[in-house]
């Protein structure tokens, strides 16, 4: 029998966006991340499955709620508003399931930079939203904290546009963003009497998008810069660990993995060529131009929707024809090859991966690519595939989870996924599972 303590236990959650299991293991072994290495020794490290699709908004929303996208409502960074072609960017107000910090209102939480938590909403504690957040004012709860953050030169995210003009400038801003984030965590750590403390470092993901090739290639001009960033992250992890007490539990995790991009593949381009997708003005690339002849269209990164009659203003596929269209799409996507390589590894039907009351809003199909292919909706793309300055892309199977605690040791699932985290958090906090399970 498990003894349930009444005293509140402190929990620290450190997120590192887009860091693969492979990388955290390798860099701790090679001495670049010594603090992480000692944390691994204390706890259990496992490879973790991300959400489908493997993008931060879906993954983090699943992490903090423990729910399926068809329960929490976040299916991607973009969505079409119901019964329209309005491409909207769902945010925290669209999240339909409560994140863990509302599970036990008596616990005070500090939540820093979790993606898709903008605009900030009131809680017992402090919240600073992460990407995508449009202004610091609405990204901060309580607002009294704003002048403090301004003093620290706090930034929600590194300005990604910078990298297009200069990688050096991008690295400089990345560094400044990380330093400001560290200042903010220190301030809140010291000034709030918290029970749960969560901070996510998103710089790792940005860096990997632009410079994954630098990580893999020791002779690359920015190889050392890449490693330096991870050793800074490691120092932050070490510092946080050194500030915890014996009784505190620590979770270190990422939301998805990373690998090298060989090609960007634009799904809409295939849909257009095969006659599934018709735009009123072929060059425009606006969702508002979807024509009534369209049978299917795609949203980023690789979500496919059947253009059903009654569901969309110009929808034309009858309900009874849906299966046929799906089969045709499966045939198309399982056959595509680029330079002799198969592009799609797996095609998920909605029924296989989305469970919950919001499944009518879920994509009908989600594609998962073979290694190296970065799938994009690419409504504007003129070619079926291409290459740009990005050298790294997300992976679904290769996130990681590390739990270090002093309670029972069966808390770590054998094959963890992002959907398990809220449950683990619940157990670590008070031995309870999340409500309404």
């Amino acid at each position: 029998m498990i003894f349930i303590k009444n005293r509140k236990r402190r929990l620290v959650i450190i997120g590192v966006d887009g860091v693969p299991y492979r990388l955290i293991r390798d860099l701790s072994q090679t001495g670049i991340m010594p603090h992480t290495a000692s944390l691994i020794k204390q706890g259990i490290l496992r490879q973790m499955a991300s959400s489908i699709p493997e993008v931060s908004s879906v993954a983090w929303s699943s992490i903090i709620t423990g729910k399926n996208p068809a329960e929490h409502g976040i299916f991607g960074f973009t969505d079409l508003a119901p019964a329209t072609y309005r491409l909207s960017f769902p945010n925290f107000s669209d999240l339909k399931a409560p994140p863990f910090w509302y599970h036990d209102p008596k616990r005070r939480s500090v939540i820093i930079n979790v993606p898709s938590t903008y605009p900030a909403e009131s809680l017992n504690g402090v919240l600073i939203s992460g990407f995508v957040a449009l202004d610091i004012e609405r990204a901060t709860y309580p607002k009294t904290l704003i002048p403090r953050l301004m003093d620290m030169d706090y930034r929600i995210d590194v300005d990604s546009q910078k990298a297009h003009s200069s990688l050096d400038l991008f690295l400089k801003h990345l560094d400044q963003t990380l330093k400001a984030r560290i200042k903010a965590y220190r301030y809140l750590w010291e000034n709030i009497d918290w029970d749960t403390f969560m901070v996510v470092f998103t710089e790792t993901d940005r860096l990997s998008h632009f410079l994954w090739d630098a990580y893999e290639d020791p002779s690359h001009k920015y190889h050392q810069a890449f490693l330096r960033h991870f050793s800074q992250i490691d120092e932050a992890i070490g510092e946080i660990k050194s500030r915890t007490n014996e009784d505190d539990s620590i979770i270190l995790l990422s939301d998805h993995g990373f690998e090298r991009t060989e090609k960007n593949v634009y799904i809409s381009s295939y849909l257009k060529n095969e006659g599934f997708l018709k735009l009123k003005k072929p060059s425009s690339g606006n969702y508002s131009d979807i024509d009534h002849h369209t049978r299917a269209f795609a949203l980023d990164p690789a979500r496919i929707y059947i253009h059903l009659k009654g569901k969309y203003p110009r929808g034309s596929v009858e309900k009874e024809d849906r299966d046929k269209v799906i089969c045709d799409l499966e045939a198309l996507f399982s056959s595509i090859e680029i330079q002799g390589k198969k592009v799609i590894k797996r095609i998920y039907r909605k029924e296989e991966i989305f469970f919950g009351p919001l499944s009518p809003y879920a994509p009908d199909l989600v594609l998962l690519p073979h290694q190296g292919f970065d799938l994009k909706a690419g409504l504007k793309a003129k070619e079926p595939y291409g290459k740009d300055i990005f050298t790294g892309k997300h992976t679904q199977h290769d996130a990681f989870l590390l739990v270090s605690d002093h309670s029972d040791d069966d808390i770590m699932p054998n094959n963890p996924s992002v959907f398990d985290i809220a449950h683990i958090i619940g157990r670590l906090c008070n031995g309870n599972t999340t409500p309404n399970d």
Partner: protein
Amino acid sequence: MSAYSMHNQDKTCWNCPAIDLAGMVDFRACGQSLQISKARSDDSDTYILARCKRNPGLGVYDPTTITFAECPEWIERPYGYLLRDMRVMILGIDGYLGWTLALWLGNLGIKVSGIDNYNRRNWVKERGAHTVVPISRMSERLHAATSVLGIDINFREIDIMDRARLAEFIDEVKPEAIVHYAECPSAPYSMIDAEHAILVQENNVLGTLGLLFIMRDLVPETSLIKLGTMGEYGTPLTGRPIFEGIFPADAILKWDNREWSLGGELTPRDPVSFYHVSKVQDTFNVYESCKYWWLRSYDVMQGVIYGIHTDQVAADERLRTRFDIDEWFGTVINRFVAQAVIGFPLSIYGAGEQLRGFIALEDAMQCMVRLIASPPDPGQYGVVNQMSGYCSIRSLAETVAEIGSQEFGLTVRIQRVENPRVEADIHPFEPIYDNLPKEFAFQPKVSPEMEIYRMFELLTQPSIKQRIEEKKHLILPRTWWSGQKKPVETLEVIDEVEYAPRAKVYLS
């Protein structure tokens, strides 16, 4: 499809002034940027994030995905979809066009505001002239607009050069379009002497420049509809077409056995007075600010306006718009009609073969609403040549003479006088004016004959005829481009006016 031609139905929130462009995301790098960069490259996965100021409930979305036709805030009106209760500010609202437009827009349900500092009234007074159609004081105009037409205008007496007060008013009203008429409109006035040239250029150029900064800081999403003039282009003697401000994509420069595309570049300007130079300078200032700050503007290269009629200004004597006939502020057709009314020979300068573009007052108003209804893209500097047709000054005089004598029984003579200006009086002319009809579905409704007839009707009223008589001595020019001050002399009096063929005005 509706009965109206909805030229703006496919425009989206991208064009709408009620949008707040909040930032950009690039999901390939999970990257966000709060700086909107103009390089919205077509094949990229970069999205613009926008919020609707009128309907915050829509959340954050891609502004290209709601069209005017779909948006409930844009409602079907005679000249395209119009924003419900759209806020339009008219700078120079007391002027010939400003006042007429205020009532025209008010009549369409637009929330009109405006500023003026009565410069025009003072300049006319300074020359010893007056408007021959009497106009009321502003307070009375506003009162009459409310009581006769039910139109409430939010007016403030402000000099556009007073940036602090202008900024305050703009911040208060938050206009969704700004129509900028507030300049000195007179070429001869700018040629009187150094003081006048400097006054015109300061007022026009610096006034507009200050406005651009205010818009950048306070209302960057608002469209600026700025008045230029066809006179900015001059009349190139090569006879090359006078494009709408910007070379078309297939224009080519050939030289030294080599070729370059000119597509997208500003076309040459060859202004014809210091006033016109001020307009050219404005063109560059507006063009640059669209480039630097993503402001959005239509530069309206307006032909010569003529006429007195819209249903609103004709509704009450106190609502009339001004009408000037002196050498500085009178425009050519308006002057001809006034001259015909008092038996003063219609004076054409030089050979009278100058070709000019024209547009009736009411048609100009229609154009303005269509431009307001269909705002440019962020960062777009658009140009329209606004005219409904063109013809020679001489044939215009003949049309006026014909209507005056045949319909109103007047004895009308035409005289050629020395040309005080430096301009070609015989030249080729091929203006292009396709944008308004093609992009904005503009169709002229008023024929020159019809408007000239209406002008005779009004100007032959005894009290107005009397006011023309009083200022008869100010009709013939004495402001020479050379700097001389002496009356022009008559070259020839044409007694036998040939009336046929009648339709000498080429309507498009």
